[in-house]
């Protein structure tokens, strides 16, 4: 199969491949500059702004958008929604690649990659939220690797190992949900230490809850986006089961996303009320906050509901893309736009072009690896030699 699928999707010198090649080349140059010249050579980070888009986008957004893995696995294996089974492998693969790229992005920000295991071996630091995030991400990346492994083992023809990996599915799913609940919320909890730096409309004692609930929305929306993109570009790789279940996955996940968005909207409004921040809505930051709350939460909630009611798959797909953009906006608001809001504009952070290059580079690497795996391994189709689990 690999011979026939080596160049599936596009010819070798297609526009996508050429652009991807240029991005990879630029990314590699910046990588050399970053690890030879340090952070100051390629970033605008300073003591006021120690976290830039490598954390705000690559990590915060990356972890949220990779939530489709635990959301889909939980729906199918814990809540018994077997009709969504065909969405599990693509979602787990997206999650696995997402978390892998998050860890790689962390190397760019932290530097000295050989020190990555230090939280576990050099000191315990168990009172730090960062330790909890590090532990959960490390463990969950392992869980995602094991959840993904049956597809790779089927591709390699290692039947016994594959059967063992399949037996672990339920345990891994439960473990994945627990770890995701912990670290998705902890990423929000990191900002609890900075009440004077984060604008009051985004700062809230409920911020861990906001991050967790919005990660569920991100996961559901990403599965819809990924499903629609897979159908567009890898239709020839999809079997009948995937084709048949595609519509029910979109409708089911759209319905769930609408409901969770409604809940998210409610807790955000209660957050404003509990901190008595109503007056701040009349300010410039308040207007931007309303754009996020009404434009990227209330609007997609309504559009998802209309799409589900009318079984309008196109509307649901576009709403999913809009919602994913909303998650990006939210994470960038918290980590960048509303952070250090009181500083004069001369002291505010704006990413260096090299930071942006690395972020685009990592997203491109993710897309290329996804394409490589999907065109070779049984992700969008079921291997006839291995029964459904």
């Amino acid at each position, binding site marked *: 199969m690999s011979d026939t699928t080596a160049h599936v999707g596009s010819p070798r010198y297609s526009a996508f491949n050429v652009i991807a090649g240029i991005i990879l080349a630029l990314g590699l140059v910046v990588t050399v500059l970053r690890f030879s010249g340090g952070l100051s050579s390629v970033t605008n980070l300073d003591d006021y702004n120690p976290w830039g888009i490598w954390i705000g986008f690559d990590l915060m957004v990356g972890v949220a958008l990779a939530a489709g893995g635990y959301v889909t696995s939980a729906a199918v294996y814990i809540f018994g929604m077997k009709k969504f089974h065909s969405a599990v492998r693509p979602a787990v693969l997206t999650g696995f690649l997402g978390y892998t790229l998050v860890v790689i992005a962390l190397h760019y920000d932290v530097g000295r990659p050989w020190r990555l295991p230090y939280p576990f071996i050099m000191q315990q630091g168990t009172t730090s939220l960062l330790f909890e995030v590090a532990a959960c991400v490390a463990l969950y990346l392992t869980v995602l690797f094991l959840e993904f492994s049956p597809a790779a083992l089927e591709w390699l023809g290692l039947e016994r190992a594959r059967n063992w990996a399949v037996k672990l599915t339920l345990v891994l799913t439960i473990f994945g949900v627990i770890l995701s609940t912990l670290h998705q919320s902890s990423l929000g909890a990191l900002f609890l230490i900075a009440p004077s730096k984060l604008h009051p409309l985004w700062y809230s004692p409920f911020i861990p809850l906001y991050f967790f609930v919005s990660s569920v929305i991100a996961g559901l929306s990403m599965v819809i986006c990924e499903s629609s993109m897979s159908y567009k570009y890898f239709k020839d790789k999809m079997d009948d089961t995937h084709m048949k279940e595609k519509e029910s996955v979109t409708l089911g996940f759209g319905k769930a996303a609408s409901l969770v968005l409604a809940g998210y909207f409610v807790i955000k409004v209660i957050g404003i009320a509990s901190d008595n921040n109503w007056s701040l809505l009349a300010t410039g930051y308040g207007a931007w906050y309303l754009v996020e709350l009404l434009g990227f939460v209330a609007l997609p909630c309504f559009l998802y509901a209309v799409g589900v*009611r009318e079984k309008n798959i196109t509307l649901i797909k576009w709403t999913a893309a809009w919602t994913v953009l909303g998650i990006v906006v939210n994470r960038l608001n918290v980590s960048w736009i509303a952070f250090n809001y009181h500083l004069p504009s001369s002291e505010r952070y704006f990413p260096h072009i090299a930071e942006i290059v690395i972020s685009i580079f990592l997203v491109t690497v993710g897309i290329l690896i996804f394409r490589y795996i999907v065109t070779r391994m049984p992700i969008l189709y079921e291997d006839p030699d291995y029964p459904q689990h």
Partner: protein
Amino acid sequence: MKTRIIRSTDQMEKTMEIHTLHDFFSHTKGIIYILIIAILIGMTVFWKFLTGGDED
């Protein structure tokens, strides 16, 4: 209670007569309780709307 727009904490305290933590919680919790009633009704209506297209 006056209805003009409040632009600072001092102004807020004068307008709503919030002097103590108790005042603050009485005010915010009062609003939250009203919101919760609205949310309970709103979510029921929304659920009916969301599931309105179901065949069964």
